[in-house]
């Protein structure tokens, strides 16, 4: 097993820049997720690590070994990188049965027949595919094919496992199941995983660290809690979860930072913040819908807003409020009474500051 080190990776296709000066280190045994919308460059980075495409600039190491580099020109072929990979389409070969699919990497390496059998049995057992060895992929469900692909990637004991949106072709229920299974598997095998997805829930629930990407650039690196609670910018805040944004200005700093929101009021709210702000800085206040609560009376840190419309969602209620000609989305307990046109007071349980 090994980590992956990427230094100043840039990848251009013609004149379009897919990945722009990307650097990061994946620790040995870490579950790292590249998260971003389609076209953000996450798959390109994965394919550079796999060696399917040469890098335009920069270096990639798997463990201590230099596998891709622009100067000196190095490009180790994918078959010599000792990586496992699971594709979005699974790529389970239709003309081979399940056993042949899973054991193919060992056959290539000329592992003795007996050892192949042992390792296959173990892998097939772990992935709950016992009894399906002689079936063909066409006879398997999506979830089973997905596990075959996983088995084929794991049986070779790769240094790194690359997963390219492996759950996106599964239905919602199976996807949830597989999330736990994948996470559990990683804990047991202890393998380094680089996981690519556009699904923020997958990223948050499974990863140790998340790299948020947009337009080929890193927006933020951090563990799930950091990325969710302290987004580095507006893009990260709105890509991961729902978010409301308000403009404000820092009016005072007393160990803690006080932020005054400019609006009819004026309302002053206090927030603990370790980012380095100065008096007079203009900031964006990010608040998640479920971090807004409805309060009975007006206080210095409450806001008065008007209910525009509400929908009942079973376990909770979502409302759109109008405040200072801006829409605010809130999510409150389902039994909260909110009538359209009501003027109500709200306060923020938790906010994050983003520099403008």
């Amino acid at each position: 097993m090994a980590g992956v080190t990427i230094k100043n990776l840039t990848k251009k296709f013609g004149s379009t820049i897919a990945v722009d000066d990307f650097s990061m280190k994946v620790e040995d045994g870490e579950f790292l997720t590249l998260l971003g919308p389609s076209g953000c460059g996450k798959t390109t980075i994965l394919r550079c690590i796999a060696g399917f495409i040469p890098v335009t600039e920069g270096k990639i190491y798997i463990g201590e070994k230099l596998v891709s580099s622009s100067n000196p020109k190095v490009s180790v072929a994918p078959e010599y990188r000792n990586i496992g990979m699971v594709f979005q389409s699974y790529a389970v070969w239709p003309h081979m049965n399940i056993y042949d699919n899973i054991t193919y990497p060992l056959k290539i390496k000329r592992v003795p027949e007996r050892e192949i059998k042992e390792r296959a049995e173990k892998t097939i057992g772990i992935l709950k595919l016992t009894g399906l060895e002689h079936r063909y992929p066409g006879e398997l469900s999506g979830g089973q094919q997905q596990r075959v692909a996983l088995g084929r990637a794991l049986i070779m004991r790769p240094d790194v496992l690359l997963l390219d949106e492996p759950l996106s072709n599964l239905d919602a229920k199976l996807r949830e199941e597989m999330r736990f299974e994948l996470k559990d598997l990683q804990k047991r095998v202890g393998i380094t995983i680089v996981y690519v997805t556009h699904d923020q829930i997958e990223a948050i629930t499974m990863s140790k660290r998340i790299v948020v990407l947009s337009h080929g650039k890193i927006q933020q690196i951090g563990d799930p809690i950091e990325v969710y609670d302290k987004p580095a910018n507006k893009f990260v805040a709105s890509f991961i979860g729902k978010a409301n944004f308000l403009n404000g200005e820092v009016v005072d700093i007393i160990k803690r930072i006080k932020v005054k929101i400019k609006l009819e009021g004026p309302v002053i709210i206090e927030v603990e913040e370790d980012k380095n702000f100065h008096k007079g800085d203009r900031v964006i206040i990010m608040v998640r819908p479920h971090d807004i609560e409805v309060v009975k009376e007006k206080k210095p840190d409450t806001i008065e807003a008007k209910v525009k419309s509400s929908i009942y969602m079973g376990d909770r209620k979502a409302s759109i409020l109008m405040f200072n000609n801006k829409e605010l989305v809130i999510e409150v307990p389902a039994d909260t009474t909110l009538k359209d046109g009501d003027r109500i007071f709200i306060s923020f349980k938790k906010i994050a500051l983003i520099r403008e």
Partner: protein
Amino acid sequence: MKKYLILTAVVFILFIFFIYPFGKLFLMALMRENNFSLMNFIDILKDSHNISALWHTLFVGVIVTVISVITGSILSWLVTRTDVYFRNFFAMALLVPYMIPPFISAFAWMQLIGPVGYINKIIMAFTGIKEPILRIYGAHGIILVSSIYTYPLVYIAITNAFKKMDSSFEEAARVSGANVFRVLKDITLPVMLPAIGGAAIIVFVTSISMFGIPAILGIPKGYLVLTTKIFILVGSYGTKYNFNLASAMSVILILIGLLSLVIQNYFVRKERFAVITGKSTGFSPIELNRLRIPATILLFIFFLGIVVAPIAATIITAVTKALGLHIKLSNFTIKNFHYILFKLPIVWRAIRNSLFLSVTVSTITSLMAVFFIFLDRYTDIKGRRFIDYIVSAPYAIPGTVIGVSMILAWIRPILGVSIYNTIWIIMIAYIARFMIFPMRTVKASAKQIDNSLIEAARISGANQKRMLKDILFPLIKPGVFSGWFLVFMPALTELTLSIFLYSAGKETIGVTVYNMTQEGLILEASALAVIIIFVVLGLNIAIKKFSIKREDRV
């Protein structure tokens, strides 16, 4: 009332073009002196000449299939999947042999490696050998020229399959530790096998149906295949029961084609290959590294030797003052072109006939296709599904057999009308032969029209007529256009049907070139062949440009 009118029209069309001629063929094959009998088949199998024609057909068919499949697959892999240079150029250039009518190609190769062809002359001049070394007449020549005509079919089929194949199949094998060649052997080839098998059957059926090439390169030396044997049999009025025997032989030829389709269905078990229809996730071409330049050079040599050389030889012959002169500027002339265009009335007559036939036939078949597809999709007339089966049948029936059927059907006047020895019998035969093309293209575009589009028009207040005019026809127009050209091109240079059915004054371009080669008018035939080659290639390129532009707009 209206329904019965339509139904009568459909039955009438199907009867005239399809049911009656082919029914008559089968009847003739199974009849002797007004009694049902298998004597025709027994007589055929008793004659060793027929057996050898049957054997030649199978031999040529199998060898051509093997050569085409290997050549077409390798070329497609190189151009589609690797990083050879000039891929766009080769993608177009390697298809040229399929655009040139096969009998023209046979004639062109005669100029290059025939007994007095340029290559033999050069070899003889350099080595001092007195006899020509390369032989074009007989099995060798037929196999060579047929393979060159058919490899593009494989190329197109494999290229399409490559484009549909999920590239992660191959990438998964790479990360599993397989190198480029191992991936080719373990993954690419097996996954492509159904496509390759399908292409092989198409080539085999095309090859056993071929008439122009074995007629030009086989008949002079007595090397006969079933199609040429049938042709000769139909023309030999001295032979007793010649029409019955020709019909029976035609039935045998049809059966061979059907049998090969059955075999293919048996071997390609569908379910194991059902998974392939994925979207291709943009290939990164395979890097050939050190082999990149040699592979490109090899492709160029293939292109020059197979595509350019025979055309060049024909051009040189066409501008030579007299056969057998040395190749030098002072021996060149344009008088051959002048002669065929201004001194030979038959040439203009043939051009007029062929243009008339190809324009009317492509228009009629396109309109009929629209009519049939409309019936199939938007009416509830009983038996409408059968139309498609009947109309598609001639695709599996060789042109020679269609020719025989038409003669049998129309040789005697029907209800006092005789169309035998007129241009109309040729037209009916063309329609039967080419009907399938617009049927396919129109059907394909109709398939893309979701029923909701039609329903939305009706909801918006359009009645059936309005819906047809505003929604359906505009949407199937591309299919109609491409169907029209798919008929127009081969009809313009058709030989097989015309040679069976033409009469004095009703010659087509194909017949004229063929007769010139038979009468030894090589210079004139070359000049006409050159004109045909350039017109055909020009039209093909124009259509390609046109359709690309249209795709851009959509």
